[in-house]
């Protein structure tokens, strides 16, 4: 394309810096929100899997039990009786340091003598020297240099930690190898010790948290042998499928956040469309002049598109940078939510992947080009003498109105049909909301025209010409005012929608708290539920509390995990008094449900459980204990 032609267009943008900034801002904000949300969600998921992989090494499966933990005899039986060698016992719990600054450590008990092919990266770097010391020297641990530096500790220093069995002095014998920044994050606040020490420290003698297993994907028969050798109350989980199951768990959460990101991109696209349309309309005389001297439609189209491409590249680059900064701030909030509702994340670091950056680039450039297609086409559609007349555009827009109404009504109709069909499908529900938004956005110029006509007629009788001017201007320039009002409509409707949703959620939580919290005092019994005497001690404490003067009644709650099907299911066991029962709200049968609940082998399920597992009243659920 002619360089002078390009310069003519470029100089126009330089002469209108505010419009240029507005267009770039639209792209930047849209891309930033999408990239920030995407990076944050992916980082949270990656963090979880990286932590799991760093600690489990190359394990393909994991044997777990319900909250009671595994009997270590199972490990011996699997190795000796069934001849399964690629096994690694694990103790996995938490300990709080008494030495200031107080912090919580993940205490990980391993078998240092496990086969090298089975070891995780840090174990391979470590060699066997420290492993032997962990076994032979009592209460010895490995920790990261970074964590030790924060706590002012050196090799051979003592670290006092508190567990269910009391305070223990641990001696640091060496640092965990940190080959990169990512590894140092993974190993932060982690104490590695040998399995026997961990059992003693945590009061879990004879117990294991899990047994890691290494079985190649092509050894299906070996896997089946292992499955057959396991007792019924033990679960063999595939670690390869773990990421997939985590993604399934956070599916709706991810979709909702992504939808919010896309919505911001949509508003950004409207902003780009508006700005680019405005830039094209402002240049109608320029375009007309160019066309009259022999510049073709294709050249005008290329000019507008290449201009938009440059804006898109600048806006997207800025958007990705802003998205990374925004992602850093969002990471703690989103990982907090994931921690609270889905799975535990030990630390939070934004992980940048080329795929996500490419997604941001594609979205930014794609959305900009999509938004600018209509103005670019509009610029080239007119013949030179029409391009010099603004009224031609408006009459063109008015001719389009009937088609726009039809498309808008079709969108709204499709949206309602999808809402009816979507059922529990989050993606379909979101598509229907987007269709509804688009439908109403398309109707906005028509409604604006009707309103302005009504206003004009009403004002016409009582007001001056000056008062009627703004109404006329809105009508006369509906190609721009209509889009601007539609953009504002989307932004306001989303804002009101979110406000109502959050308000309703708060109200529900408030009502739930008011009905649920019926007791005067709550006693939280901290500690590891796998500890051998924990259950006896807690029961004794309950009896003592009940005997105290002034204690009218007690209710107790135990949170645990039981195997149901091929997953661990959260189970809450209640011993409730009459008053506590008032805190329960039942979806279908009302309070009459307590009569059925008092019978043997009956359970209540939460609404989300029923929703995810398609459970109905009267269904049976097999729980292994």
């Amino acid at each position, binding site marked *: 394309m002619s360089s002078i032609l390009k310069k003519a267009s470029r100089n126009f943008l330089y*002469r209108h810096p505010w419009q240029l900034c507005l267009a770039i801002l639209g792209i930047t904000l849209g891309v930033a929100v999408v990239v920030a949300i995407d990076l944050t969600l992916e980082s949270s998921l990656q963090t979880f899997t990286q932590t799991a992989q760093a600690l489990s090494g190359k394990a393909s499966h994991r044997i777990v039990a319900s909250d009671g933990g595994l009997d270590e005899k199972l490990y011996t039986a699997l190795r000796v009786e069934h001849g399964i060698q690629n096994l690694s016992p694990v103790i996995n719990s938490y300990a709080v340091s008494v030495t200031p600054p107080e912090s919580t450590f993940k205490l990980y008990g391993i078998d240092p003598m496990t086969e090298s092919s089975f070891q995780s990266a840090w174990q391979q770097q470590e060699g066997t020297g420290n492993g032997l010391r962990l076994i032979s020297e009592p209460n010895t641990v490995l920790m990261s240099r970074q964590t030790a530096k924060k706590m002012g500790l050196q090799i051979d220093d003592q670290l006092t930690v508190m567990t269910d069995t009391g305070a223990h002095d641990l001696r640091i014998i060496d640092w965990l190898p940190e080959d990169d920044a990512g590894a140092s994050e993974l190993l932060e606040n982690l104490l590695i010790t040998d399995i026997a020490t961990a059992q003693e420290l945590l009061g879990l003698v004879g117990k294991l948290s899990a047994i890691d297993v290494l079985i190649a994907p092509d050894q299906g028969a070996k896997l089946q042998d292992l499955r057959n050798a396991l007792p019924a109350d033990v679960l063999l989980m595939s670690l390869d499928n773990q990421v997939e199951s985590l993604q399934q768990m956070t599916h709706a959460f991810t979709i909702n956040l992504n939808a919010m990101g896309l919505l911001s991109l949509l508003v950004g696209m409207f902003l780009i469309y508006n700005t680019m349309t405005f830039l094209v309309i402002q240049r109608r005389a320029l375009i007309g002049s160019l066309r009259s*001297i022999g510049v073709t439609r294709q050249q005008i189209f290329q000019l507008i598109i290449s201009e938009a491409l440059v804006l898109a590249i600048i806006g997207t680059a800025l958007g990705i940078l802003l998205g990374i900064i925004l992602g850093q701030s969002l990471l703690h909030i989103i990982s907090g939510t994931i921690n609270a509702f889905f799975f535990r994340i030990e630390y939070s670091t934004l992980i940048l992947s080329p795929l996500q950056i490419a997604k941001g680039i594609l979205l930014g450039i794609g959305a900009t080009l999509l938004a600018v297609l209509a103005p670019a086409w509009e610029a080239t559609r007119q013949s030179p003498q029409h391009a010099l007349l603004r009224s031609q555009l408006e009459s063109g827009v008015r001719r389009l109105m009937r088609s726009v109404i039809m498309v808008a009504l079709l969108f709204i109709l499709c949206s309602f049909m999808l809402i009816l069909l979507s059922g529990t499908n989050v993606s379909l529900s979101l598509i229907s909301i987007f269709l509804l938004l688009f439908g109403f956005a398309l109707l906005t110029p028509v409604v604006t025209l009707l309103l302005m006509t009504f206003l004009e007629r009403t004002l016409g009788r009582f007001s001056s010409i000056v008062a009627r001017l703004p109404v006329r201007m809105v009508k006369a320039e509906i190609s721009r005012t209509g889009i601007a009002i539609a953009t504002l409509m989307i932004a306001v409707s989303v804002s009101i929608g979110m406000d109502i949703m959050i308000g309703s959620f708060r109200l529900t939580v408030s009502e739930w708290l008011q009905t649920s919290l019926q007791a005067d005092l709550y006693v939280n019994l901290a500690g590891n539920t796998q500890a051998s005497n924990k259950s006896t001690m807690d029961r004794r404490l309950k009896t003592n509390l009940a005997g105290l003067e002034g204690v009218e009644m007690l209710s107790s709650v135990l949170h645990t995990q039981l195997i149901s099907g091929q997953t661990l299911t959260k189970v809450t066991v209640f011993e409730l008094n009459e008053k506590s029962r008032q805190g329960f709200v039942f979806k279908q049968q009302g309070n009459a449900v307590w009569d059925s609940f008092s019978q043997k082998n009956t359970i209540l399920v939460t609404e989300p459980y029923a929703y995810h597992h398609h459970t109905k009243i009267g269904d049976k659920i097999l729980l292994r204990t």
Partner: protein
Amino acid sequence: MFNKTAFELSQLSKHYQESGQQQLIFEHLNLSVAVGEFIVLLGRSGSGKSTLLNLISGIDQPSSGDIWVNETNICTLSEHQRTLFRRHHIGFVFQAYNLISTLTVEENLLLPLELIKPIDEYDRDKVRDLMAQLRLADRLDTYPDRLSGGEQQRVAIARALIHSPDIILADEPTGNLDLETGEQVLELLDKLVRDAGKTLIMATHSHEVIGQADRVFAINNKVLQLVTDTL
């Protein structure tokens, strides 16, 4: 005096659809213009002078009839072909100058050349020479909005001539200028076009230009009438 035909209009009619009704601009226009001829079109506002220029340049399409230029009927060309035809064969001078405000005077003149082929030093010399003839040699790096109306119209004339088109179309070229400047511009346009041996069709209200034209036509009551013929 003139031998070769520059263009020919045959049974040319134009009407617009407005509010569902057909508005006839003119009908059955026939005209043959020779190379190097200076034609003036007179007529009241809305008589169809600008429409006729738009049709000759291929900007607009007639409702019926033909326009022959160099044995090509431009009415049968596609929009893209008509744009290319305009690029090579037509020079346009507008009442409102229509210079590209974001380009300097020099760039405004180089643009029609660059649309045809990459610019070389010969083109730049050509621009400088033409601007010197127009007594605007010192304004090459100036943007059009810094020029007076008369200067802008002189640049517009230079732009219409720079790529040596066959036909120059001027639509009210003095409409925005005062009488004295208008006369100077007309004189300049006449001289440059005649020196280059090009055909000039000028639509105007001004009767002062009649004396310089070879033939004068008027569009009255939707038909083309010969007013004067000095040939």
